[in-house]
């Protein structure tokens, strides 16, 4: 606890409170539709973006601004070509809070990482690595991305790469591999070292806890006979097989009472008859017997479950209450329904056509056609490196 005596120096918080400036509360009303960002959000942009769900003009403005930012990437002539990409990504993350396909974020990530993957300048740039890591977070299986980064030596001096990779692998229950990744990062002296060591310690604690709980659980008996119910049975050995399974299992006797749920359930064994026994002559075996599994029998035999005649149901009438609808109910206060981003308006289609004619040589996909974005996003989620040349996976 710390007491602070009042000083004359004004701090930004005091100024903000005194300014009577309002930030708006849209963030509270639409909280379920906002994807939390690791770095936090700018509430002003967030509120503006959330207002756009009920205001068509604001929505058009957002799409227009995204288009301008994408064009700015193409027109950039400065000495840091990655910076307009970062600005665009940051803005899209803020301005399209639900994320999702219509934001076009995944497509922008992919184009950004593809643009600079061979650039020596950005291999150790933390900003570029963070784009890769965020791209990986959005994909169905990020392992392919982490392997790509390893092969192409992207971000290998940064601790965040090894932490993200190891956590992803740990999540897939490959604890040994995750441990190797952490050790690789430590051996390469990835910065910041403290952060990597801290993450590794936490990983070790989790691993120990996991192994302890595994030890506490009673070991399952793996000596029990394995059964495949889908096995195709050769003719005539049906009952022999069933007899064997039905026989008493010496292993079952060893099981404790509290493990009864793990014991194999008894399978009914037919009485062994001459016709179906294992020592039946070969000539007989080839002839299917009625009643065996190999012959279906006639229609009457197959439909034996449907023999009972239909009878009259119990004649009980449910008393019906007359439904009274009042007009007042309709005028009750309605709550605002959150509407997902529209797929593709006619205006957007038109813009898309214009864009395609304007910049066919452009590196950047014009993100206007909602359906196009959705389709591309889904494809990238499944195969994040689909646009990369095959030689990019080789050392």
């Amino acid at each position: 606890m710390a007491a602070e005596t009042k000083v004359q120096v004004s701090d930004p918080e005091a100024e903000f409170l005194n300014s009577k400036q309002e930030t708006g509360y849209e963030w509270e009303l639409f909280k379920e539709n906002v994807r939390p960002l690791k770095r936090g959000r700018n509430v002003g942009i967030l509120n503006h973006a959330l207002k756009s769900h009920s205001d068509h003009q604001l929505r058009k403005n957002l799409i227009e601004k995204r288009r301008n930012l994408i064009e700015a990437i193409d027109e950039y002539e400065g000495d840091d070509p990655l910076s307009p990409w970062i600005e665009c990504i940051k803005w899209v993350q803020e301005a399209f809070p639900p994320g999702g396909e219509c934001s076009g974020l995944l497509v922008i990530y992919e184009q950004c990482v593809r643009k600079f993957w061979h650039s020596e300048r950005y291999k150790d740039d933390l900003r570029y690595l963070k784009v890769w890591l965020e791209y990986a977070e959005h994909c169905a299986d990020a392992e392919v991305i982490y392997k790509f980064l390893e092969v192409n030596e992207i971000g290998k001096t940064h601790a965040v790469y090894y932490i993200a990779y190891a956590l992803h692998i740990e999540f897939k229950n490959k604890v040994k591999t995750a441990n190797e990744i952490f050790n690789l990062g430590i051996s390469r002296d990835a910065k910041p070292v403290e952060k990597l060591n801290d993450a590794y310690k936490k990983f070790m604690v989790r691993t120990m806890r996991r192994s302890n709980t595994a030890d506490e659980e009673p070991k399952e008996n793996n000596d029990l006979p394995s059964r495949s119910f889908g096995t195709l049975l050769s003719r005539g050995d049906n009952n022999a097989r069933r007899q064997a399974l039905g026989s008493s299992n010496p292993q079952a006797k060893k099981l404790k009472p509290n493990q009864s749920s793990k014991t194999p359930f008894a399978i009914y064994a037919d009485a062994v008859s001459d016709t179906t026994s294992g020592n039946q002559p070969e000539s007989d075996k080839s002839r299917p017997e009625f009643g065996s599994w190999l012959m279906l029998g006639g229609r009457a035999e197959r439909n034996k479950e449907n023999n009972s005649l239909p009878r009259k149901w119990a004649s009980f009438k449910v008393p019906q209450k007359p439904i009274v609808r009042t007009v007042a109910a309709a005028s009750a206060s309605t709550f605002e329904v959150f509407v997902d981003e529209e797929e593709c308006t006619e205006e957007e289609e038109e813009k898309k056509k214009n864009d395609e004619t304007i910049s066919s040589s452009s590196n950047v996909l014009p993100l206007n056609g909602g359906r196009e974005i959705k389709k591309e996003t889904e494809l990238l989620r499944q195969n994040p490196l689909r646009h990369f040349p095959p030689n990019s996976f080789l050392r």
Partner: protein
Amino acid sequence: MASKTAAAKDIITLHGSAAIVSEFFCYAANSILYNRAVYPEESFVKVKKYGLPMLLIEDESVKSFMSNLTSQISEWLEAGKLQRVVLVIMSKATGEVLERWNFRIETDNEVVDKGVSREKSDKEIMREIQAIMRQVASSVTYLPCLDETCVFDVLAYTDTDVAVPFTWIESDPKLIANPQMVKLHGFDTKIHKVDTLVSYKNDEWDEEE
């Protein structure tokens, strides 16, 4: 007769107002510690307060800290010497300030000097506090993820003539450089007016996390 009883309930004294505000701070602090995952989920127990399910920490040392804090805040409020209470969340490893939950308190000096009382219904105050608690829970929509071990501290901005108790120390303001700030709802007992604000560090892409 019934109306007289109802009217009596609406009267708020300085002592009563101080109790409401200090208790509010205790519950708000617990809610922040829970929602920002400063302590693990299993360290909290659910109770009903302000007509909402609230979470209180079960850790004895933190409970003791909160208890001392509440009584000290109440004492300062009754004396009209407290301007602000700030809950600061910091990185355990680096000590860097990540979040500041700022509760600014404006006191009606006439009540402190002359001992008069004010009128406001308990229900109305509770509704206002409810709104703040809901906003604390909703704040995850814009606050950064605290993916490192964090610690918290409480700062009290008091008048210069206040004697600092031995359990407290003089401190720097623990401000955040270029913070993002969000104003939350406030509440007013008609004696103490509380404004709430959260400021947080908005990470840049080129910073080592």
